């Protein structure tokens, strides 16, 4: 009798050891990569103006989107509406900005320019074709009513995002 009980207990213990947690792991690589190809520089053509335009002595920044999956993302690029760092400014600043397609890896991407949506100081582009596309955001700031900018360093930020559709 004792032997039978001992045997049943052993069986129960061995059945409990069969249970195991199975782990499933996975990595998702980004299918949309943003890279700053060129940082911008503000030119100061007149005392009250800062501009990235080449004609104004500035350098237009270039931001590159590498898209692996076509039609899955949209590029959202926001031009500056304030300085991230600057001398103390006590007057109003008037901001202008735009984003254009500067270089494509597929001729069809050229349609991004005509199909872009613009609101406030933000431009949206549907990335419908896989490949690389470069955008050129421009920025222009005018201080007060013909008021000279105070001397010092000025910094502004262009926000480039890749948002899944």
């Amino acid at each position: 009798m004792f032997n039978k009980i001992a045997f049943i207990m052993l069986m129960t213990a061995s059945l409990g050891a069969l249970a195991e947690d199975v782990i499933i792991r996975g990595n998702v690589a980004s299918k949309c990569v943003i890279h700053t190809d060129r940082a911008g520089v503000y030119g100061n053509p007149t005392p009250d103006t800062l501009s990235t335009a080449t004609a104004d002595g500035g350098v237009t920044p270039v931001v590159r989107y590498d898209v692996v999956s076509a039609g899955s993302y949209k590029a959202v690029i926001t031009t500056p509406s304030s300085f991230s760092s600057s001398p103390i400014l006590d007057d109003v600043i008037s901001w202008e900005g735009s984003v254009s397609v500067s270089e494509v890896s597929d001729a069809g991407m050229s349609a991004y320019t005509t199909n872009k949506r613009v609101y406030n100081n933000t431009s949206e582009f549907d990335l419908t074709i896989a490949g690389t596309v470069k955008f050129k955001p421009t920025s222009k700031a005018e201080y007060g009513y013909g008021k000279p900018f105070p001397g010092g360093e000025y910094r502004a930020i262009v926000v480039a995002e890749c948002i899944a559709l």
Partner: protein
Amino acid sequence: MANVLPNVSGLSINAVIYRYSVEKVVSDPFIVDIQNKNARGDGLIFHSRDDWSGLPGNRINRVIGVNGIDASYWGDGEIRSSGIGSISEASLVYAYTRDSCAETGVPIVDTKCPNYKITLPDIPVLPVIPEVLIPDLISDKPYVKESEEVELSKELIKPSGKKGRADSKISKIITQNSLINSDVLQKAVAFEALNNIPKFELYSFTMNGGVYRDTVKLQDGKLPDGRRGLVNTWAQEELHQKMVDLQYNSNKKGN
């Protein structure tokens, strides 16, 4: 393509990278073809088309992988457009790799190549030393012709007065021997020369063991100055004084 790609074998094209800018009206049709002829046959080895019809002009930068096509297949390339529009700032780049193992007409220098062969420089063939003579060389007996060997043996056997002549004969034979470059013979000559150093046997002189004490002793415990040295010192001092006076007087006269 001969003036575009390096003129070496083992070259393969991995990618074609082209850039150009298009200026056109959006509604106009415009097609751009980038292509290369097949140098080994008819048709094209590479073709890519960009259709700008209904699109605004822009700058394109495109990389197209071609998976390592042998460079010999690549004929002349061109960027051809059709429609209404214009192309500017065009460039076409071929990305290639070179397989050093696939070179033809030149020796393979990469040791990792499967067809690598060791190439030895031309080395002049030296006369082979007969094996039967090698033991003779080791035992300080130079290689000689059979006739000379017999003559030499006769001279060496002579009891006295002829050894010097025999030694000179050995030296002469060694100098004339064509095996002078042999290491064994060179060693034999070196040992022979070592035996001819005068009083060489003194180098092997052995001294008896024990303590060798100083045997020089000062008899009365004094070491007086030598008279000869004193006279010599006076003479030098006198001469020095004369020379100084001579210089002084000559300077005085000059002034």
